[in-house]
């Protein structure tokens, strides 16, 4: 099957500074890819290009025409911060794309999916960080996307909440058959969640390593195979020139 998103030879610079050089990647249907790298390596920039939020770059970014068919909006995005509209209730935030014409049954289903059943009328200020991020995930899923782009979505919550949110996202992605492109600086998270880990590094950044994680979901965080792949990834990270 052909890729849902294909980025070829992406170059991106801010003013004089080149941040991304010749980066190519393709996201296949049902695939979970992690973009891993130190902060400032341009991984979020790459995600913004994929989301269509950044259009000033060199190279090609192809969306599979399939993404524009059907009822879905094709791509859903969850940012690092929840980015909820503070004046809207939780339910209104989830159905934000459609405003007053939001599909209430679907919103209720998503509330159940992310474990916030009955909290639809709450305001964002009444939510904890983890709950707010759950709402953001539900909002990302509202458009029935085929691709979900996640920009370090778990970096602002505590370790325990992070594990729960990771499991939630991977479960929902499988349930709704969504491909995931996840940006993260957390090696454990990348290896635990994804089918493929792409490591960015160097200045300007390019892909320095690509690791397959051929383990079925759901995975055991304690599994020896995961530790082995983590080791490989660490080696790749340390080998890159600084």
């Amino acid at each position, binding site marked *: 099957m052909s890729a849902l998103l294909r980025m070829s030879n992406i170059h991106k610079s801010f003013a004089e500074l080149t941040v991304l050089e010749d980066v190519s990647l393709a996201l296949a249907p049902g695939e979970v890819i992690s973009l891993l790298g130190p902060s400032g390596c341009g991984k979020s920039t790459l995600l913004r290009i994929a989301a269509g939020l950044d259009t000033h770059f060199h190279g090609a970014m192809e969306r599979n025409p399939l993404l524009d068919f059907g009822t879905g*909006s094709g791509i859903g995005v969850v940012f690092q911060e929840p*980015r909820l*509209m503070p*004046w809207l209730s939780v339910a209104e935030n989830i159905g934000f794309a459609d405003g007053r014409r939001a599909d209430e049954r679907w919103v209720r289903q998503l509330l159940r999916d992310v474990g916030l059943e009955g909290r639809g009328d709450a305001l*964002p200020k009444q939510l904890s960080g983890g709950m707010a991020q759950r709402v953001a995930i539900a909002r990302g899923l509202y458009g029935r996307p085929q691709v979900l782009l996640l920009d370090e979505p778990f970096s602002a919550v505590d370790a325990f909440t992070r594990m729960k949110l990771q499991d939630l996202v991977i479960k929902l992605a499988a349930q709704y058959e969504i491909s995931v492109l996840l940006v993260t600086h957390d090696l454990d998270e990348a290896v635990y969640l994804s089918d493929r880990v792409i490591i960015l590094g160097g200045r300007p950044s390019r892909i320095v390593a690509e690791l397959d994680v051929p383990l079925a979901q759901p995975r055991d965080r304690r599994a020896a195979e995961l530790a082995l792949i983590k080791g490989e990834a660490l080696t790749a990270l340390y080998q890159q020139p600084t």
Partner: protein
Amino acid sequence: MSSQAQPKALQQTPIAGWSAVRLLRFTPVGLLLPLAIIALLELSVSRGWVPAWLMPAPSDLLMTFRELAGGPLWTHISASSQRVLLGFGIGAGLAVLIGTLVGMSRQLEAWLDPTFQALRAVPGLAWVPLLLIWLGIDEVSKVTLIAIGSFFPVYMNMVAGVRNVDRKLVEVGTQLGFSRAALMRRIMVPAALPYLFTGLRNGLSMAWLCVVAAELLAATEGIGYLLTDGREVSRPDLVLAAIITLALMGKLTDSLLKHLEKRMLGWRDNFNGKEQSQ
């Protein structure tokens, strides 16, 4: 009371059963200052410290109010209120629209904002002669003056409000493929509401200022007319009655807006000035 650590001199002897203190505790603190002033005035007029023909005693003022309330007071209040409502509605409405557009577009700002800033520098009253020449002395000129006066505070705050909208929230809309109009309606305006309300409340007080100015010059009814009338017949009680009416009307309309603000901005998660203790 465990105040052993305190030096003896600082300890206060509690006055048991002093009912005035208890009474004070249940009175809204905002009322204390006006009440004190009224009491002082009453005292100084009745003692003859201030001549009554310059400063009527509060009790005389109450009589004037009673006399006015039986007749023209309500006509004056309704005339002024209608002018304020109409002028403020037009001025603030235009300001919200133009302010949002200017806030959203740097280009539009470059075109319009310098002119608006120059016009804003003109004191509202400077328009009066021109408005009288152009529009005559009837309602239109008064309403126009009020609209001009209330436009600028609302406009300034609306632009600032839109410019302060979190870029990250706007990006959510952009990612969802919102049009410019949808971004404006669904993200910019709601997010700018706290600023807008500040602007509206400033604009409203400007509107009351302008209505008095307009009515002082040419009017047969209205609170401003009551002021002129009081001066012409040398009755400070009339003037004071008009001033108090203005204060009450201004406070009343502002309270309405404040109430609306509280209801519409309940979602804010800000510092609200509450004292930390208690």
